[in-house]
């Protein structure tokens, strides 16, 4: 195992409540996984993962809550569905990965702060205007994440092609939308 943990005491680190929670929230039965590895074989993002998907599934089976929720992999998943489509055990693996993100946030684990920042800015934009105001969102995100310089080469092209609108479109029902965001998100 990674992180120098070469001996794992199975009983000591088994968090049953975590396994149940993942299964309930994702509506998937993780015990169905027999570790064929097809999710990893099909994963476009596995190069950057700390644990390949099949090991994430194994770690859930073993109830290793901290390792799973603290992993980088769950934040890098692109939700491309390749794992779900090819799973011979018909587990919606992408959905499990999505569920893990929600649980990680709930439990105060955030492996990728930038992703969190972007998500917050996105929903803020939705609450303000009812739709996403791309130019404003990108500017706000880049500013907050301190990554102003990355992707800078794209801006002139976008401006030239008239692809970035600088006037946000406010919809009539934006208060209604803001209320929905407020009601169903823990973030804002």
């Amino acid at each position: 195992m990674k992180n120098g943990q070469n001996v794992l005491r199975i009983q000591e680190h088994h968090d049953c409540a975590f396994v149940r929670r993942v299964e309930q929230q994702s509506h998937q039965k993780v015990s169905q996984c027999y570790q064929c590895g097809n999710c990893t074989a099909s994963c476009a993002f596995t190069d950057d993962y700390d644990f390949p998907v099949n090991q994430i599934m194994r770690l859930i089976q073993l109830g290793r809550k901290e390792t799973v929720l603290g992993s980088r992999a769950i934040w890098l998943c692109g939700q491309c569905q390749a794992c779900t489509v090819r799973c011979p055990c018909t587990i919606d693996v992408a959905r499990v990965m999505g569920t893990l993100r929600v649980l990680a946030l709930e439990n105060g684990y955030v492996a990728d702060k930038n992703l969190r920042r972007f998500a917050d800015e996105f929903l803020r934009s939705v609450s303000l205007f009812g739709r996403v105001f791309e130019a404003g969102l990108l500017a706000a995100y880049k500013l907050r994440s301190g990554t102003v310089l990355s992707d800078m080469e794209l801006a002139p092209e976008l401006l030239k092609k008239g692809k970035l609108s600088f006037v946000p479109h406010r919809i009539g029902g934006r208060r209604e939308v803001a209320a929905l965001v407020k009601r169903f998100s823990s973030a804002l």
Partner: protein
Amino acid sequence: MRIGVFVCRCGTNIAGTVDTQAVAAGALASPDVVYATELLYTCSEPGQQEIQNAVLTHRLQGVVVAACSPRMHELTFRRAVEKAGLNRYLLEMANIREHVSWIGQDKAANTEKALELVRMAVAKVRRNEPLFGSQVPLTKRVMVIGGGVAGIQAALDCADAGLDVVLVEREPTIGGKMAKLDKTFPTIDCSSCILGPKMVDVAQKENITLHAATEVESLSGTIGNFTVTLRKKAVYVDWDACTGCGLCMEKCPSKKNPDGFNEGLGAAPAIRIPFPQAIPKKAHIDRSACRYFSTGKCRVCQKICPVGAVRFDMEDRQVVEHVGAIIVATGYDLFDPAAYGEYGAGRYPDVITAMQFERILSASGPYGGHIRRPSDGREPRDIVFVACVGSRDKSVNRPYCSGVCCMVIAKQAILARDHLPEARCYVFYMDIRAPGKNYDEFVRRAVEEYGVQYIRGRVGKIYPKGERLVVQGADTLLGARVEVDADLVVLATGVEPSRGARELAEKLHISADTNGFFMEGHPKLKPVETNTAGIYLAGACQGPKDIPASVAQGSAAAAKVLALFARDSIATDPQTAHVMEKVCIGCGKCLSVCPFGAIQWKTLRDGTKKAQVLETVCQGCGLCNATCPPKAVQLNHFTDDQILAQLETLCA
């Protein structure tokens, strides 16, 4: 009536969750019960003895055994009471194991339920009558359906014992899947060298009638006396005349047709003998490929045939056979890998199935035994084998293990290395299942002696890159996605029931499991029987099997038939319908519903018409009983009285 009740503990199987003593004590309160006890293992020798003793000591006239399912041991206990002098139909069973102790943990509820089931059985046995079957002569001929290795073995064993055998094969030749194999695991002996002589034997035995290119159309009758209607398909060649010289194949102008025997690799003429060792070695015309049938012109084969055997006007024809027993050995088909869009089988010519690779390996195959790529004829340097394609995969509705693919792959990788010592072989597998004699050693040889690289993980995608293919899989032992560049990819496609298996099951009134394989009589104790008396199973039609297991089952099914035919007559089941003439109003409804034509009119002296049951034809379904308006027709052992007595015991 004096009734005895015997409650089985079945070790702890029943006693663990049912208070058997309380059930026995409670049973004494039922009417007519004069004796009740619990027993440790009722089906054991001492248990049966105990019953027989009690019958004599307590002058019992009826017996209730509360134990396992009657489907398991009813016959055992019927014989036991018979030995004690009771009629076997004065026995009833209460199923307190499969239906009680094994499905619930609540001992109080189970005990109450068991006692109620016993009371219902007592109520039934009080109304039971002694029944006697009659003896009918047996037709000592056996039909074997399917001419693969299992069917061939069964047919030869029966024929060796002197029986008349009717062997029915859907294809124009016998041999089945085994005839297509190059070598067999784990001995690497030549498949056709061991199967060929058996096929020849079939042709030479005078007491085997072979119907090739023939399918079963319908079945009637019961054990001992079946009537089977067969449809002999038109092959457009008179097989009595054809000598199998093969001249027609040479001259046929329509040569480039997909060759079924070579799994679509290579081409075959429209008129052909499937392969050189075919039995019968007769030509047939593939109608869809024949020019005469599509354009009305050609007839080259007809002109060239030295014996004038070609008959374009041939039609399907029916044949009726009378047999006393049937062995079903219809084998299997292979999963169509096109269901995996990500593997590209069908789109990429160098992604092939293991059966196609088998034909490539075979010296009589499309490439003369030289391993080449179908796309460009080049020798492959890197060969990747993919296990479990259509096995253990719920997403394609094949949740079961096919059992043989692990060994097939190991064999093919070894053979590939033998043919092409420079080639590198890779195997993607999930688990290696090699439990047979010398099987695991064989797989180890592939790894250790032949240097086959086993990679533990499934394959996600196969795609072409230039002239080669990229196999994208996982190595779960490493926790990595891996890629292998390949020249040839072999998919070990899974085993599935033979096409048409369900329809055949319907015709034969046998059942199939959820995956479509035929159901054996009991998973352990009746592996070659079906629930229909007189019909037996052999080989992969019952579930995935390798050659040794199929051969063993072929012989086992033959032994069952020989045991059946060891007597001269067979007792009919007396659980048939009978008509109470005084009650019968002659409406004829029973005649119209009977699926077997077992009811006919009988004219009394006064001219009135009454229904009459032909006991030897009646199968005992009871449809007439439920249909009869005045309830004049009653099904023995399942009469209205008997059923209502059970119902009332529970509801009262």
